[in-house]
């Protein structure tokens, strides 16, 4: 009921940007909703990059900018209550990290500018009308393109040539949209003689069961696409793959520092840093409808040789030479 009231109110209100842009010398307020838990080093690195981007543009947290951080840890209930709270006392801009938070935010927030960060396929998912011209109160920075999962499989196969069955693991409550792309992923995987299966998980027990199942026959491997649930519960995946000796490729470099075998994907800190430029632009009066949604510009491949050795994998020098980060 409260939500609906708010939508009605905000629909009636005129676009507030121009008016806001003209108010001088007021400390501006933005809210940032993060996918991670507060102590998560990946989340902290993202936040630091974001602050750094803002600093470079003259915005200092605590001085001329107030940033309210919401560390949602991928908890949908918490995301909903945070979004409702923000609707009640709207900041100048809401920055959302990942698909789940954006999806909750756009249902409630219709007039406050939203800058999303690390969202796959925002047009296909209906968040914006086009990348060049987002059209509404939402714009931002995309993350994976689906063809990149083929690239990840290719890298996994180079490091672990014996892999013939790969589990594509995600939480259907967080990332149900992967389902429609699975046939395409399966076709790509067959080029490398890999059978792609899907592991839908929502509990730690299900993660362990999925990894155990891959280990039940030879040739098992795991692919961990971006997903709010598996990001938050990544320690379980890393432990489980170590226990069952399953080669796995992740989407975030941070995972390699935590014992994961390898990762491939866009550089998350770079994307967060870039997102500060849109916060700056919008605070200065730009309309998000006119700011093109941007794709990642930097990609990174990282590998942990210690983990490789413990899995009995000999990583070829030609693969090591291609890595942006190697943990020995």
């Amino acid at each position, binding site marked *: 009921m409260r939500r609906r009231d708010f939508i009605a109110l905000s629909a009636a209100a005129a676009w507030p940007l121009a008016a806001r842009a003209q108010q001088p010398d007021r400390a501006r307020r933005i809210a940032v909703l993060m996918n991670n838990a507060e102590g998560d080093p990946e989340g902290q690195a993202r936040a630091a990059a974001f602050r750094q981007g803002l600093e470079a543009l003259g915005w200092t947290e605590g001085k001329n900018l107030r940033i309210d951080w919401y560390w949602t840890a991928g908890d949908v209930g918490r995301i909903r209550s945070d979004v409702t709270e923000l609707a009640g006392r709207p900041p100048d801009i809401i920055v959302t990290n990942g698909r789940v938070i954006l999806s909750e935010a756009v249902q409630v927030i219709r007039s406050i500018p939203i800058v999303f960060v690390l969202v796959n396929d925002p047009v296909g998912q209906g968040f914006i009308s086009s990348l060049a011209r987002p059209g509404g109160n939402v714009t931002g920075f995309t993350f994976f393109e689906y063809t990149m999962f083929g690239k990840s499989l290719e890298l996994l196969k180079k490091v672990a040539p014996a892999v013939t069955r790969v589990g594509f693991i995600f939480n259907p409550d967080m990332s149900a949209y992967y389902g429609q792309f699975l046939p395409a992923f399966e076709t790509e995987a067959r080029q490398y003689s890999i059978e792609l299966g899907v592991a839908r998980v929502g509990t730690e027990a299900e993660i362990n069961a999925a990894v155990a199942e891959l280990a039940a026959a030879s040739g098992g491997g795991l692919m961990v696409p971006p997903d709010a649930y598996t990001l938050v519960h990544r320690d379980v995946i890393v432990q489980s793959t170590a226990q069952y000796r399953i080669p796995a490729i992740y989407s975030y470099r941070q995972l390699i520092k935590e014992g994961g075998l390898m990762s491939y994907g866009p550089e998350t800190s770079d994307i967060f840093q870039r997102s500060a430029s849109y916060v700056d632009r919008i605070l200065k009066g730009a309309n998000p409808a*006119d700011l*093109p949604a941007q*794709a990642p*510009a930097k990609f990174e491949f990282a590998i942990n040789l210690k983990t490789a050795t413990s899995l009995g994998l000999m990583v070829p020098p030609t693969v090591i030479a291609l890595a942006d980060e190697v943990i020995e």
Partner: protein
Amino acid sequence: LSEIWFSFQEHKASLIRIQREQAEAAAAKISQFIKEIESQVGWTTQLPWSAGTIDQRRFDGLRLLRQVPAITELSQLDATGREQLRVSRLAMDVVASKADFSKDPKFAEAVAHKVYYGPVYFRRESEPYMTLALTGTRRDAGVSVAEVNLKLIWDVISQIKVGERGQAYLVDAQGRLIAHPDISYRSFPFGAGAGGARGRQRQRPDRTAPGGRGHPGAARADRLCPRRSAGMACLCRAAAR
């Protein structure tokens, strides 16, 4: 890019010299950026085509991507213009697709002129890209075709300060805007008849380039940057107020 030209429109005579130095520095940065890419791509055009070289080429291609963040994709065409290899940051490698590019400018122009710079295009509507194609010194080496993400040039441009409130931006040989500190300017499909883009192009600096002793003005930049010489012009303007 063989040459980078620039010009200014100054509004405070005393700033001219400083602005010119800044413009020169900007032009040098961009020139260096492109030259670097060109020379790195050049390394992939050394081998002749034979069955034994494909693994080496694949490794060279992937290593090129590792070394040059601005290159998103590299494809290699053999001496007859058929694609033998494509490596990308965004997708699986493709070996021997044999797709025929013999009539495509990226092959034909590169063979005729050693190097080819394609027009700016927008990948997935919003990402500015340019095709850069190079031939090797050997006739049988074929052509290497790199898809270059111009956003990383935009990063260079956006850091350039001209005078107190001035800015630098980059246009291609057709006078289309490639990079501008105001990123929303990039969103226009230049040349596709977008009124906004044309309107903004009219805001380019005066072409008289006062104080530009020895520095070609924008008019010359436009004229002197035919497509096959891959002209890009770095235009720097001082603040109007």
